[in-house]
Structure formats: structure tokens, C-alpha cells
């Protein structure tokens, strides 16, 4: 099982809390946004709290908005792409199929209107397809703070991520629009919305004064290419809302929470095909 965790920590550096979550969910690859703490200090705090003989180390930071840490030995994970907002990692684990991990922290709605956000997602799709072509596989998982809800056009449009609500739809042949075929992503975060879903109602809370306010948003997401669906079990997608007994969100008051975003954790059983090791 390869376990990925993404967390926008909102500049509230807390290596101990991060390490506790790594320990709880047995995280293999940790991806952080809005984190500026010096690498040595942060890695030390995480490793102490994670308390495992498998130590985490940080991949080259490159001034990116997304930082990547792993406990795979060097050589099994490498940075494939980094444009500042998106970091792509190629994982070739000792046992199992390779993964293209796309970790993103896309521009905030505070600074980018919907046209800009759509443009950014279209670029993301192009960059993903370029990497998939170079690497010869489409075992791609997108994970990150996309600053978009799963129902917004940028994520559902064919020329966006084409993220769909249903696995059966995701495995259909690419959809042709105006003569061009567009492959899908499956977006399991549709099943993590609202108070009757598993876990919290979203990943980001904002009680705004605008006419339209969703309160709960699911900006932090996981999307999977259909080729990864055999390795995905919905029970292995988790949105933790507390670290130990401490709620993560401050919910707009007091600033006592650990971040304004919740983490997302997904485990993929990619080692089930050992011939690819």
C-alpha cells in the first residue's frame, strides 16, 4: 500500500502534528503547501513524531509552493516536473506499478477569477499529458489544494481535468468533443461532500458575506486516472479532521486550529502487481 497525504498547513508550521498524522496513516509520501519552515528542522520534527525507523527526507524544494517528503529510499522517487504551483513526482516503488503523483496548490479565488482558474487547470492537464506520454503510463493521481470545488467547470470540463463523479463513467472511452477525444479522471471527492458523507462535510470552511456561500468547500482533492481504479478502495480515502484530540480547523474563530484546510489521505494498493517492481 502506498499512502499519500497532502496538507495545506496554512503557514502554521507544526512538524509534530504532521508527524502524528504520518504515523496514524502510515504515510509514505507527504506533500505540504504553505510551509516555509527550514527543511532540517521540519524533517526532524516530523520524524520524531512519526516515531518510525523509516525516516522521511525532503526532495529538492526548488522554491515550489508544494514541498514533498518521502520515506522511500532515494532512487525510488524523483521530481518529474515543477512549475512552482505543481510538483509532479515519479514513484517507481520496489514492488508494484509506477505512479505519477501530481501535487498541486493552484491559485486562490482571492487572486484569480474563474477564467484564470480554468486556464490554470487547462495548463495542468496539458502538463500531465506531456508527462504521461514521456513516461509511458497513465497511473496518475492528482492530489492537492485546487482552490476549486469538484462541481466547478474547470474541474469537470473535458478540456479541464474532466473529473467525473462515477467510476463507471471514468472507465468509458474518452469523450469526443468537437472532434477531440478527452480522457477522464475519477473524482472520489464527490463522495466526501456534506454532513451525510464519510468524514467532515468538506476540507475548507469559509462563512463569507457573499450572496452565494457554500460554507464547506472541498478544495483539497484527490483525482485518479481510470488505470488506478483497480488499486483504489474508497475506504482508503480519508479526510482527517483532528490530530489526536485537537480539531484541525479553527472554523474562523480564535486561530486555535492547526490549519484552515484539512488534509487528504489516500492509499493505493499498487504493490498488487509485483512483477513491475
Amino acid at each position: 500500500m502506498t499512502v499519500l497525504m497532502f496538507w495545506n498547513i496554512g503557514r502554521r508550521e507544526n512538524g509534530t502534528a504532521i508527524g502524528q498524522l504520518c504515523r496514524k496513516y502510515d504515510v509514505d509520501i507527504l506533500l505540504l503547501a504553505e510551509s516555509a519552515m527550514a527543511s532540517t528542522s521540519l524533517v526532524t520534527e516530523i520524524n520524531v513524531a512519526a516515531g518510525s525507523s523509516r525516516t522521511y527526507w525532503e526532495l529538492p524544494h526548488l522554491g515550489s509552493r508544494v514541498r514533498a517528503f518521502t520515506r522511500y529510499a532515494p532512487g525510488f522517487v524523483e521530481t518529474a516536473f515543477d512549475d512552482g504551483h505543481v510538483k509532479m513526482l515519479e514513484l517507481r516503488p520496489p514492488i508494484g506499478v509506477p505512479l505519477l503523483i501530481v501535487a498541486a496548490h493552484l491559485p486562490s479565488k482571492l487572486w484569480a477569477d474563474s477564467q484564470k482558474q480554468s486556464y490554470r487547470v487547462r495548463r495542468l492537464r496539458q502538463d500531465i499529458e506531456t508527462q504521461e506520454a514521456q513516461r509511458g503510463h497513465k497511473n496518475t493521481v492528482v492530489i492537492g489544494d485546487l482552490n476549486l470545488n469538484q462541481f466547478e467547470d474547470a474541474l469537470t470540463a473535458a478540456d479541464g481535468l474532466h473529473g467525473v463523479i462515477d467510476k463507471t463513467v471514468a472507465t468509458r472511452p474518452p469523450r469526443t468533443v468537437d472532434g477531440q477525444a478527452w480522457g477522464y479522471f475519477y473524482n472520489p471527492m464527490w463522495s466526501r461532500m456534506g454532513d451525510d458523507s464519510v468524514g467532515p462535510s468538506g476540507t475548507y470552511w469559509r462563512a463569507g458575506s457573499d450572496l452565494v456561500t457554500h460554507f464547506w468547500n472541498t478544495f483539497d482533492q484527490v483525482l485518479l486516472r481510470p488505470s488506478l481504479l483497480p488499486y483504489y478502495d474508497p475506504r482508503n480515502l480519508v479526510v482527517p479532521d483532528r490530530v489526536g484530540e485537537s480539531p484541525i480547523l479553527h472554523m474562523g474563530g480564535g486561530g486555535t486550529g492547526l490549519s484552515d484546510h484539512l488534509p487528504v489521505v489516500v492509499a493505493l494498493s499498487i504493490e498488487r502487481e509485483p512483477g513491475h517492481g
Partner: protein
Amino acid sequence: MVESFWTIPDVISARTPVRILREQAAALTEQTKGALVGVVETDRGQFSVNLEVKLEISVPALNDYRFRLLTYHQPVEIIYPGTLETADGNLREIPDENSFISAIKAVLSSELVKNVLISLLSQATAARQLTNQPRLALGYA
């Protein structure tokens, strides 16, 4: 002396799944001279009340990379019947101790596990050789 109504089970000599798996874990560690380390852990299942007894291979040369060979989902109140989940995701019902031992033997001698051992041993050996090379060979002046 007060008459005791308790019937205390003999757990010291009982060959529980944990004990059987620990024996196999130790055998792996010994036979590979520590290149691969067998690890047995018991947890409460995340989505059920069962216990999960896991047999994993740890590879010290690969930053203790772990590969899970199998999980025995054991009811809390009894040892058998339980369910054995193997690395390929297959599940099988285990009615008793003999069946457990037969199933473990079949899994550990399977082609899948053989391929895993070959892969991990060769990668562990390569990693150790790289670590043991003189510094000049790594390009340091």
C-alpha cells in the same frame, strides 16, 4: 480457599496465528541473514472490530521499506474462523489452525511471494553494494 469459577485458557502453549507468523518472520530474517526482516504486527482493524495480524517484509537497505505479505482478520472473541487476505487482494476463510498453517505455507511458497523475495533481495543487495563503494567511485574527490 475460595473456589474459583474461572477457566483460565492456556495461552502460553497455544499456537496462535501471531505465534505461527512470528516463527515464519524469524525464519525469513535468519535465512536472508537480515537482508529481509520479517515483521508481525497486530492492530485493531480500521473499519471493523476484528484484530488484524499482519506479516510484512521489511528491507533495512531500502530505508525499512515494507511489503505486506498477508493479513489475518481475526475475531476478537475467538481465533478461528477468520479471514486471510493475501498480497494480491484475495480473501479466504480459515476455519481452524491446520487450515491456517496450510494456507500460510501455500502463500509463502507461492510464485507471487517468490517473485517478491527475488525483487526485494536483489534491490537490497544493489543498495548495499552502492553504500559500500569507496567514496571516489561515487564521484567525490
